Each structure stands twice: as C-alpha cells, then as structure tokens.
C-alpha cells in the first residue's frame, strides 16, 4: 500500500541526502539502496529498482529512494522534487535518464 508521507517538505537523511517535493512511503519488494531509481510494481504494489530493461520502464511511476530500504520494509521515495547529495559529481543542465542497470540513472546531454 502506498502512503503519501509528506509534501513540499525538506527531508535530510543521515547520509547527507536531502530532498524537497512530493515524498511517499512504500514497501520495498527487494533491497533498495539510497538514491536508487525505483518503481511500484503493479502486481504487488511494492517498490523495485527500475531500469531500461524492466518491462514497465516507460509506463510505471518512477521515484528515487532517499534512504536505503530492506526488502519488505517501508522506505521513503521522491516522486517529484529536488534531491541533493554532496558526493554526486554531476554536470548541470544534463538530462537524467533511466539506466540499463536497475536503480542507476544516466546523465545525457540535453
């Protein structure tokens, strides 16, 4: 079951991950690492890592985990908003796309 945890509220994780926007809580169907790109599988309504090879890659609601979540545990995910992480070394202006590796994302030139 999906529950909206908060909206437009800053959340700062102990690992230095902060997020602002629409944040929900969901049960993980597998072990999820913080900052993994995930989706809710329709069959069991649990969160799984999302990649281009997943059949629902273009249709499922994508979200980003802002904390590590063990399988069958509840974790927080950003549906829409900004996510900050001090260890990232990204290039401003690039698009963020799904990666072939489930959970990862790729930077692509605009």
């Amino acid at each position: 079951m999906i529950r909206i945890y908060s909206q437009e509220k800053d959340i700062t994780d102990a690992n230095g991950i902060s997020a602002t926007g629409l944040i929900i809580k969901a049960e993980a169907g597998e072990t999820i690492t913080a900052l993994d790109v995930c989706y809710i599988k329709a069959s069991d309504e649990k969160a799984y890592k999302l990649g281009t090879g997943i059949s629902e890659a273009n249709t499922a609601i994508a979200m980003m985990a802002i904390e590590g979540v063990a399988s069958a545990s509840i974790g927080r995910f950003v549906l829409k908003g900004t996510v900050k992480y001090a260890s990232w070394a990204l290039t401003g202006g690039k698009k963020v796309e799904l990666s072939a590796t489930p959970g990862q994302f790729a930077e692509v030139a605009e």
Partner: protein
Amino acid sequence: MARVIGKVLSATEIYFDSAYFTPTLSGGAVEGTAVLSTGEAGGTKFLREDGDGTSSWQTAGGHTQNTDTGTTGNTFTVDSDSTTGKIIVDVALGAADLSLTLTNETLTANNRTATFQNKTGTIALTSDIPPASNYISSAYGDIIGMGSTICAADRLIGYDSNTTDLPAYISIADFLKYLDTIYVKI
C-alpha cells in the same frame, strides 16, 4: 532513447520528476523528425515496429524487385500532372544506362487509347512514314493518300504520272468502274 526522469540542476542536485518528458507528455503526437537515432550510423536504417509493442532500428535490405500485387482493378494509372506523361524503363547497355520512354504528344481534345492486338510480336517503327498531307514517291509517280490536300477524303488513292490510264484521283464509285481495267504496272 531511454526514459527521461529528471534534470541535473548542479553537481550535487537533480530535479526528479516521474513525468519528466515521458513519451505520453505530448499526448503521443510526436513528430517523426523529432525521433532521435543517436548510436546509429550508416544512413540506411529504418524504424520498424517489432510486433510486440516496441520498435527498433533495422538495416534496410537490398533492392527488391516489386510487382504491384495490391492492384485488383484492371486500371493502373500514372498521374503525371503533365501534358506529356512518361513511363520510363531504364536498361543497361555496357557502362551506359539507356532509357526507353513511353510518352505522348500533347493531347488537345480527346482521350486516346492504344490497343494491342491479341498477338505476340515486335512493333516495327520507322521515322520514314510521311504525314497525312504528304505522299509516297515511287519510280512511276506519286501515290497520294486520302485526306491529303490533293486527294479528298472521299476519293481513293491511285496516281501514275507515266500514264493517263487512271486519273489523278477518283471517287470510290468511279474506282469500282475501273476495277476490270486496273492493272499493275511493273
């Protein structure tokens, strides 16, 4: 192209949006020229529907000789939007390709139809056939065609300058009178 899920705002920050530039964002009306083909090369590929709901770039095959098997009527129309339509058959001759062109003079009033007989053979064409207003010369005189400026349309051909056996031209009725006296001069 993978699904876009956000944009990098800075080195340490991204804007994440599940609906960011998703395929359905524009209502599915994506212009064909907007489809990217990064990662593909050669300039010969086409985007094919794979039959399973996905599409993929495919290498175009070689030239295929085509027969229009989809035409079920007895008429095949080439609308050239020109006063002189052309059907061109390119053929090879050594290193130089030549063209056989089927075309028409400019039609002025009526539709024209060329009908082939129920025969197999070769159509022999020559550029020596004179027009209707001209005549064919022979060693013994001139044969004048019906409808020419000399021979009226209701007159028969038949003229020999070396003899007065036949008038320059005669009517069909008179021709019948001469039937028993006409001879071939050799």
